[in-house]
């Protein structure tokens, strides 16, 4: 399962690789990383349908996570990839906005990796 992680923080990559080191080693999960919304769209364009799941931060300079969500849901319908929105602001407004635009799940920072793992596994 290919998972695209979108976050402006570079260290997210290291963190995910370590958190999911066993799943990566097992070949259960494969992680790609994009550091902005724009990067993410470019990746998706290149690797159409490769990513099954997109995990995006909302709060990013430039294209925000929500915009990315809208773009993805608008551009990739057949089937559209799962999108899980991650936000530091765990407020209702963000949640509603994400859900309205077709987000499959909403995760609040700091990320509870145990529950995230379960969510990912259930989606796979």
């Amino acid at each position, binding site marked *: 399962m290919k998972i695209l992680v979108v976050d402006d923080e570079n*260290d997210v990559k290291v963190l995910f690789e370590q958190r999911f080191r066993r799943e990566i080693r097992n070949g259960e999960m494969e992680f790609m990383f994009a550091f902005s919304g724009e990067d993410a769209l470019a990746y998706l364009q290149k690797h159409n349908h490769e990513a099954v799941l997109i995990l995006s931060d909302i709060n990013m300079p*430039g294209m*925000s996570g929500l915009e990315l969500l809208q773009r993805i849901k608008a551009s990739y319908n057949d089937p559209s990839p799962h999108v899980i929105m991650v936000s*530091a602001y765990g407020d209702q407004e963000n949640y509603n906005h994400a859900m309205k635009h077709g987000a499959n799940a909403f995760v609040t*920072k700091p990320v509870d990796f145990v529950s995230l793992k379960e969510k990912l596994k259930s989606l796979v």
Partner: protein
Amino acid sequence: MAFLLEVITNGKILYNELVMKKLLLAPCLICIALASRSQSGDSLLHLLAKAKEDTDKVKILSRLCTEYYLDKPDTAMLLAQEGLNLAVKNNFRIGEAMLLSNMGDVYLSFGNYTKAMEAQLKSLDVYEKIKAPGEAVNTLHAIALLYSDQQEPRLALSYYLKEYDALKIHPDENGLLWSLIDIAKTYANLNLPDSSQIYSDRAFEIARHYYHNNFPGYFLNTMADLYAYRGQNEQAFQYYRQSIPDLINDEYYREICQSYLGLAKLFKITGQMDSSVYYAKQALQISRDKGLLLAQLNIAGFLTTLYKSLHIIDSAFLYQELNTKIHDSLFSGSKVKEFQNILFSKQIEEREIQEVQAAYRNRIKIYVLAAVILTFLSLAIILLRSNRHKQKANALLHKQKLEIDTQKSKIETAYQELQATQAQLIHAEKMASLGGLTAGIAHEIQNPLNFVNNFSEVNADLASELEQEIDKGNLDEAKAIARDIRENELKIGEHGKRADAIVKGMLQHSRNNTGQKELTDINALAEEYLRLSYHGIRAKDKSFNASLKTDFDNSIGKVNIIPQDMGRVLLNLYNNAFYAVNEKAKLQADNYQPQVTIRTKKIDNKVQIEVGDNGKGIPQNIAAKIFQPFFTTKPSGQGTGLGLSLSYDIVKAHNGEIKVETKEGEGSVFTIHLPLTANN
């Protein structure tokens, strides 16, 4: 004509009759009347007839009076009256005085001392009024003589001295000589022999020169009198004797009598009584023959005392009787009284005059004093006024100064208050911007904290995995895990420091004191504050989103600035940019993509920092005001109006400049230029 003939022939008509008939007399008739009286009188009459000017006539009449007053007193009186009238008519004052004096002489000839003194004093009064003391010699002499005759030697002396002074004005030796003699005589009479001697010596000096040592009898006999008075008998004898032949020769009977009487007196003193009687009788004979009443009086008096001393009582009685008779005729009781009245009134008058003069002098003194006082007073008033004026001005000045001081201190206080307020405002603005930042800062801290927590958790997992792998004896895997742990540990440290830096920056930002300039990575600063601002806005408005575009020139290197100050400038510009795009986003919901741009660039020796937005822009009429303090377009409570103003000040303090380019509805670009060389 009969009257006139009478006048001419015997001249004994009564004065009153003359006065009564005077009006009938024309001057020419007088001329006829006086014709052929004497040689000099004739020539004078001739002159009078020829004289055209009234003043000349007056003068000639005066001289005629002098000519006639002894021999023909009636005629002289007539002439004197005529002359006086003429002088008064012509307001010829000297003439008036002259003729008054003449009239006095005439009165004396009549034996009327009272009238004589009156006339002489009037004359003197005129002379004094017209201030012609030099002309008053005759009058003064006449007055002195009158006093002398009336046994008033002190008064006589004062007039003789006045006469002497008057003579000195038009010196003439003869006049001075006789004046000196008169004075010497009077001093002797006053029993002041030393003074008398001084004046008689002076008289002799002048006489020697004047008479060329050929002294006339009347001079010698006068000097003899003087010596006799002073008890210098020998000289007196000598001069009396010397005088007599000359006097007889000249028919000076009065003086002959005088010399004889003098000798008689001297002989009486020396005890030669027969000689004394002889000379006294000689004198009496001559005086009787010549009708010299005064001389007779004196001689009779002397003979009375002489016979008394000789105890020849009947003779003494005889001469006593004669003496009384002559005395009565000369000085009738009333006459003496009258004269004394005149004397008294004259004294009063003189005292009055002196009083008046004293009063006048006093008045003058008072006037002068008053004038001086007035001058001083006015001066004092002027000084007082100017002083008061000055005081007023000073008071005003003082008041103004006080006011100015008060104003100054007020202004100073106000200024201090203003400074304090400004400091407070700056601080408040900082705090306000900090408040706005809180969310952004929280987010900025939250992120590294999340990493710290996550890596920490990961490391805990990895540690237990490491144990399991070691237990399994899988050393390679164990090594890999250990490597990861170390790597994560680095990340934990890194993110811890990041949070730490944010907190420090926040503290720096809120600190009141001005920071120090330090070499700063302007790009990093711009990015940090962009994030802070962005997250700050996001914290307040969850729906807000904007694309952030950064375009950093990495060739800039480090710039010497006060980082927290410049950070605030950037923060303000970002906040405004976000506010502008957000406002526009609220209006145009869908198609609008809010965007804030930060661009740095090195241009020559300057750093250019551009903060741009595609927000609603600033209206032109406001654009000029945005750097003014307290200017804000935000609703009240949302902005202090100090952000851009302080930014402007900070940039200025860095020797830089800040400007804005804006187009309403399309966005704004704020551009900062900071010098790289100066202060860097």
